[in-house]
Structures are given as C-alpha cells and as structure tokens.
C-alpha cells in the first residue's frame, strides 16, 4: 500500500431525506489515511452522524461516492463484508443486544468468521479483558452502567481487528469521568492496533485529542484543523487550519472565493 493512499475517501457526497426536504450532507469531500485519528465536530443536526453512517455503509449517499482503499463501494453486501472484517462501529446508544450478555454481544461480531465456538468465547473474553470488563462478562446490558456498556460496544467493534474504527458520539450518553475513560480507551486501542479512528463528538476538548478535526456546519465541511499536540497531551481546542485534506468541490471553492 502506498504511503499516501487513502483508507477511506468520500467524494462529492450528498445526503437528502424526505424527497429533498431535508439536506443532511452537501458535497462532502474527505480523505482518511491509514492509522489516522480524526474528529468530526459540529452542532447537533450538522450532519456528523449522517456522515459516519455513510462512511460505514450503514446508509447510502444520495449522490457521490465512497472509496475504500481507492475502490468504490456501493453494494450493501460489500459494505457488510467491510463492517464484518475491516470497519468497527461504536454508537452513542451502545446498540447492544439486550438479551445477550456482554461476552455474547462481543462474540456476536465474531460469528460467521470460521472461528470455532471455543475460540470465539476465548477471544470475546480477552477483548473484554482489554476493555477492563472481564468480571462483567456474564452480565446483561441492563446490569451494566453506561460506561461499561460503551466499553462492551468498543470491545465488539474491535473484535475483528478493524482498519477503521468509527465512533459516533461514543461519549454522548456518558458522564465526564466515563467519557474520558472511553475516549482514552479508544485512543489507546487505535494506537496499539494501528487502526484509523474517526470520532464524532461535539466536545471540542475530546476532538482536540485527535490528529485533526473536521468541522461540519449545515451538512457541509466548514473547516479542517490539524492539531499541534499529540493525542496524549491535553490542549486547547484551537488548532491551525489543515490544508488540502478534504477536496473542496467547485461549489465550495466558489463560496470561498466570494468570502
């Protein structure tokens, strides 16, 4: 793989709902390279989750193309395969199956991969240990705190050693202590496993811990900022503008010229 090749590339992506009445995303252009850590920030309704859904194939763009390793992906089955093997997703609402224990929820991501039941159980157990929940393996989601549930969801998302982890407001339903712990966990996992991480958040201090941040406004990329500090250092949310990371569309270039 060439050093500068993209892991995932979004080109001219639009997403509209209700027959065009609602525009969630407008002409989004974005490149994420392997092992990068990016934060998508913006106010509620700015299109952050819509973008994550499209980047994970959980939703299809109304227009535009998404490339995985420079290959366009549009079939649902191809996206499913990617989510099963290369892309891990963490949701704000955790999205654990309520009737399954923590270990079984993690195991769920390993089913259908030609792994024996014993190996699946062993692997689920080691993943839960990695997220600090080995003593909660046999608990149902309702018996876990919000932070614990999110850690189970993180363990599930990394079960298949993904190249890309998409975290959609993973701290949105957590208190600040749990939020810090979950972000720390995600950053550590990303560093240890060498996966790329895209973190959707409206919390600027969390976003500042990523390599760069993409700011969305009204469904369009407003700015892209590269952070100066490493992920281990706490720093102010501000950063310098990162050039040429996204590929502004002609319309966007025209808007910029007007300004």
């Amino acid at each position, binding site marked *: 793989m060439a050093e500068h090749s993209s892991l995932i590339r979004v080109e001219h992506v639009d997403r509209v709902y209700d027959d065009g009445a609602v525009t969630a995303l407008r002409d989004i252009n974005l490149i994420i390279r392997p092992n990068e850590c990016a934060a998508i920030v913006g106010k509620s309704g700015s299109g952050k989750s819509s973008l994550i859904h499209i980047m994970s194939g959980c939703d299809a763009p109304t227009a535009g193309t998404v490339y995985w390793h420079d290959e366009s992906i549009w079939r649902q089955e191809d996206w499913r395969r990617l989510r099963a093997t290369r892309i891990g997703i963490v949701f704000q609402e955790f999205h654990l199956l309520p009737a399954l224990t923590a270990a079984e929820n993690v195991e769920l991501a390993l089913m259908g991969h030609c792994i024996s039941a014993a190996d*699946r159980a062993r692997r689920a157990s080691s993943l839960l240990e990695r997220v600090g929940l080995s003593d909660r393996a046999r608990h149902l989601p309702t018996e876990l705190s919000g932070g614990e549930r999110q850690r189970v969801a993180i363990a599930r998302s990394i079960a298949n050693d993904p190249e890309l982890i998409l975290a959609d407001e993973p701290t949105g339903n957590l208190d600040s202590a749990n939020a810090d712990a979950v972000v720390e966990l995600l950053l550590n996992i990303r560093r240890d496993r060498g996966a790329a991480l895209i973190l959707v958040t409206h919390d600027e201090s969390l976003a500042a811990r990523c390599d760069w941040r993409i700011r969305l406004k009204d469904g369009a990329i407003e700015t892209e900022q590269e952070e100066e500090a490493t992920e281990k250092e706490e720093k102010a949310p501000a950063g310098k503008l990162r050039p040429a990371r996204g590929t502004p569309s002609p319309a966007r270039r025209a808007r910029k010229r007007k300004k």
Partner: protein
Amino acid sequence: MNLVTLAVRNLQRRTMRTSAVSLSVGLAVASALSLISLSDSIENGVREGADERNADLTVLKRNASDIFSGFITEDLVGRIAGMPGVAAVAGDLIMFAPVDQDQQKLVAGGPPDGFIWKSMPLLAGTMPAAGATRYAILGSGAAEVLHKGVGDEITILDEPFHVAAIANYQSALNRSMVFVPLEDLQDVAFRQKQITMLNIRLAPGLKPKQIETLKTSIAAIGPLLVTPTDQFLRNDRYVAVMRSISRTVSLIALIMGALSVLSTLLMAVQERTSEIGIMSAIGWARARTMGSIVIEGAVIGAIGSVLGIGISYGVSYSFTGLPIIGEMMSFHPVPEMFLPTLLVSILLCAIGALYPAWRAATMNPAEALRRF
C-alpha cells in the same frame, strides 16, 4: 454460541415477551384445532354412540333423505335374525319429538328385550319388568336438561311417560337421548309396526367375505342400505349438510388461525427491527440475520403449538360441562392431528418471521437503528 443457541437465549431471556407471543400462537392453534375437532365431532359422536350400543351393522331405507324419514317394516327383524352370521337384531324407531311439550329431543324406541337395551348402563333406577309400558329411560344429559329424575313424569308427543331409569352412556349422542319401548313410541307417533333402522350384531369370528355376503343378502330383500354402524350417517342428507358446514368452519378456523399466527409473528419480529439493524451494522450477512430470526420464529411455533394442543384439550374437556350445549355435543382433538399441527405451526411461524426479518435485513442499518 451458534444461531440456534442465540435464538434460544433471545427467547429465554425475554420471558414475558416469549410467553405472550407463544400464548398468542397457542390460542390461535387451540382455536383452529378445537374448531376442526368440533366439526369432526358429528361423525365421531355417531361412531362413539354406535360403539356404545354394540351394533355392527345398520340397515336403513335406501334413498331416504335422512334417517328419520326412511321407514321400514318391523317384520324384517325376524327375517334378518334368521340369516347366517347374525347374532342379534334390534329394530329402532328414532325421531325428534317434543318432550315435556316444548323441548325437541332425540327419542329412540327400541325393544326392551333387544341386545341394545340389555347392555344399557344405568346410573339410577332399574329396568322395568318385561311387559311394562309407557316408561322412559333418560340419557344422563337429557335428564339434566329436562330436570327430571327417576320417578318423575314426562310427556312425549303429549303422552305421559314415567321415568324409570337414567342411562349412563359416555357418548354425547346417547347421553342426550330419551329411550322408550318401541311399541310405545310406535303407538304415540302413529307408526305402528314401523321402524327407522335395524341394528345387527354379528356372530363372533365372522370373516369379511361372510359379512359382505350377509350385506348383499339383506340388501336383496328390498330397497335397503346396509352399512357398518359407525358409518350409517354417511348418506344422511342433513348430516351431509352439517358436515359441509363444519368443514367450511374448519377451513375458516384454519385460515383465521394461520392469519393470527402470521400477524403475531409479524408484530413480534417488526418490533425487533432495530436489533436486526445492529446485526447488519456489525456486518452480519443478510441470510445469517434472517436465519437467526426465523429459527426464533420456529421455536415459538413449536412452543405455541404444544400450548395450543394443551389448551384445546382443556377446552374440549370443559366443553362437556357446559349446560345444554355440552350435553348435545362433545369433541376431543385426535392425536393424529398433533404432528401436522406442530409442523404447520412451526412452518407458519417461520414464514411469519421471515417477511419482517427480510424487510429489516434489507433495510439500511441506519434506518433500522433509527427505530431503536
């Protein structure tokens, strides 16, 4: 964990939901099974009644539209009794008649010295001595409906009869009947020397070929129809109409039961759209996702059908306790129906789960998750 254990755990850990859905399926299965059994009860009732009366062959007037309208002469009794292979013959005059003025009951006039009366089980009272007249033996159900006991008086066709005993038959047909001496009924109904049917008990050890020969010989006497007793209503026009109605009811019951099972599963799976969305979001293949849901549906179908069979059994036994109706009819689901019921229920539940599972599995995961 595999797909089957996943389905079982999903059901086990949602006790209330699993119970409610299984019960809904069970009630649908029970309704269909009970109505089908009820529709079969006419023929089964006749068969049970015939078994209790120990007759092997029944002779009726050929081409009569129903058993009450085809009269044959009583003289045939002696003629048939002399045929080889015949152990005993009893002529019956059977008709619906007003009992105690306004209650239409099935009244059977039979010879008190005939083999049917001799083997009649009595619950109360005693069989009057030979030559006694104008007495009645009430089936236990008829006695209950008429509120009459031994020693009471009743009227049949406006003529007084003395209740001598209560018969303890088990079949609904015999329990609901009123038995009187043949001559008395012929007298009050102005049907002297007339009977509606002949009951024949065959000599033991008779071979099928000999029975066929006997049937041919009897049929040769005149326009007579000779049938095994448990089938003697097969040619009855009214019974044929009732059978058609009951078959239609069965079909409707089956369709309603199937629709009920389908809609129950449809709703049960539809409310899990978001869970199916989670499976899609973590990369489960469509077939695998649908497989796990369909297996759950099939397990619910199996539980529901077992519940349904149990419920229909309970209903059938409590049905006989119902006043008036229970004395006239009875039904019991037959064991031969259990396996088809189980298989049909499993199949319907699997189909019921398949459509919403397919719909949810083909949906964009983002859309499915929005239903969380």
